[in-house]
């Protein structure tokens, strides 16, 4: 059963076509990778899905609900979480607080003042945050200010912030960009571990090692159009893809 359905998405930027009639279907529980050369429109597509960019035409439905024309916080409350290319965390707060905040969003919705009760009396939030931090192996660093974490740990923290909300769909924009090989492998392991939770994932990634380690299906974008779609093995052997993206070297 498809959880995300994109039909005829089109986006122009000052005469330049960034997305041209993009159609895509993501199955629930699967890992769907979107690959393509620089400027293919991958990030634009992701930004359309999270309310950052309004497409000129087309539809995007998540679990039967349209994602277009609604605000980012409404998309998040609907069950869509996003991991950014550069980890977007609360650098001035502690690791623990970084995870407690999204847990509050999950429990209280998009607005609840709650200005009198002490934060440390919210035991349900603390326990939930601790459980997720244990899962991503950051519990021992809970009291550390997030800005002092390494790049790899910041990525783990960002993932924990998404996971604590128990999303149905996780959108990952180049989650291993700028990472060392060791950090990349750790992130792959972590994403596989997350896979056991049954969360559907859409990954935009340049690193083929990451794509072929994780993805069940791969869509290839080139010049704003989906030129191929299939299993990783099918994509590897597709001459059109090799020509457009892998340059025939793969």
């Amino acid at each position: 059963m498809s959880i995300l359905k994109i039909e005829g998405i089109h986006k122009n930027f000052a005469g330049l076509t960034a997305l041209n009639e993009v159609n895509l279907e993501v199955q629930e529980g699967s890992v769907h990778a979107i690959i393509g050369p620089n400027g293919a429109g991958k990030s634009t597509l992701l930004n359309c899905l999270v309310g950052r960019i309004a497409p000129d035409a087309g539809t995007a439905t998540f679990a039967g609900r349209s994602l277009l024309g609604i605000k980012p916080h409404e998309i998040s409350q609907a069950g869509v979480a996003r991991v950014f290319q550069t980890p977007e965390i609360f650098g001035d707060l502690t690791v623990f607080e970084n995870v407690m905040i999204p847990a509050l969003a999950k429990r209280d919705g998009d607005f609840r003042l709650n200005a009198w009760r002490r934060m440390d009396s919210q035991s349900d939030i603390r326990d939930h945050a601790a459980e997720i931090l244990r899962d991503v192996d950051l519990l021992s660093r809970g009291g550390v200010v997030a800005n002092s974490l390494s790049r790899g740990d910041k990525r783990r923290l960002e993932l924990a912030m998404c996971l604590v909300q128990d999303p149905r769909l996780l959108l990952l924009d180049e989650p291993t960009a700028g990472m060392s090989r060791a950090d990349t492998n750790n992130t792959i392991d972590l994403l596989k571990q997350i896979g056991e939770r049954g969360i559907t994932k859409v990954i935009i990634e340049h690193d083929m090692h990451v794509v072929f380690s994780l993805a069940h299906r791969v869509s290839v974008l080139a010049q704003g159009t989906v030129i191929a779609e299939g299993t990783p093995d099918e994509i590897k052997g597709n001459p059109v893809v090799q020509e457009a993206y892998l340059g025939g070297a793969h």
Partner: protein
Amino acid sequence: MTTDSARKDWMLAGGFALAILTMPVWLTPIGASYPDLLQKFAIFGIFAVGFNILFGLTGYLSFGHAAFLGAGSYAAMWAFKALSMNVLPAVLFGVLVAGLFALVIGFISLRRSGIYFSILTLAFAQMSYNLAYSVLTPITNGETGLQLSRSDPRILDSLFGTETGAGLPSTNLFGVEMSGYPGFYFCAVMLILCFVISMRIFRSPFGMKLRAIKSNQNRMNYLGFNTGPYTLAAFVISGMYAGLAGALMVATDPLAGAERMQWTASGEVVLMTILGGAGTLVGPILGACIIKYCENIFSAFNERMLSNAFSLLPDPVQHFLVVVINPFVGEGWHLTLGLVFVLIVIFLPGGLMEGIRRLSRIRLGGPGGGAKDKAPLPGMAEART
């Protein structure tokens, strides 16, 4: 841990209350224990604590908070004229009107962030200031300022048959006049209440969300928070604190003038907060007290007083010191304040509270830098004292 940190907070509140209520005693040696100055410490302390809820927690820098100070003053003054000379209705009315005013200005200004937000708030405050001098003269009494008159109706006082005597009536709290030390103690109790409320906000989920907005508002949106109502709530609460400060000004000195809405008053509360330490609980109050102390004490110094102070030194040295220090006192006290502010911003960006923290770290022999990335409690970076 919950009980432990809650107990620490109550100890902090208790210590703060004790320090404020005993100010007339321990401020005597530095000549700052007279009621007018003590009232200013408490009133501007409230103003700064409120401003810190907006600026210290969310990072939104308002240059227009004087508008709420003025609105609170005018509203309280009207309560004295129309309802009663008792300060409670006036304070209530001042807070309410300032809160409504903040709701309108905040709703519009918070559509932008950064410098654009600051400019919008400044524009609104200047508009209010100019309106108070022009078209709103029937409400504000223009340049003369809003004053009490014997012919004011004072409905509640008439209803309860309260005697006002032959001259102009005085503001009071159930018969206790609000001038002198009683006025200070009333303001001090209000400051303590405001401090406790501010402390609860700092420690609450609301406070944590405001700090997260300051850190990364974009991420907050993508985590499912509608950040608009949170920043608006902080703006309104902050405006209500300013309204309370304005109401207390007329409770202790019943005259409301438009100059309270001028941009210099908005700038002053920014200085107070940054000087003491934005985002800390006690810092803004410390900043407010230092600025008001400088304003009242240093501005009263003159060349003759300096000569007397250095009279024990040899003549050439005495003359040299008087010549060097004289430009920094009297009318030139702003130069002292400016220099102190520059030094604080350069060397202690976290304000005086950062200096105090550094000193206590050195005194305790703790690591100079290693501890700074650790939270004081496991997992929770308690909002700084």
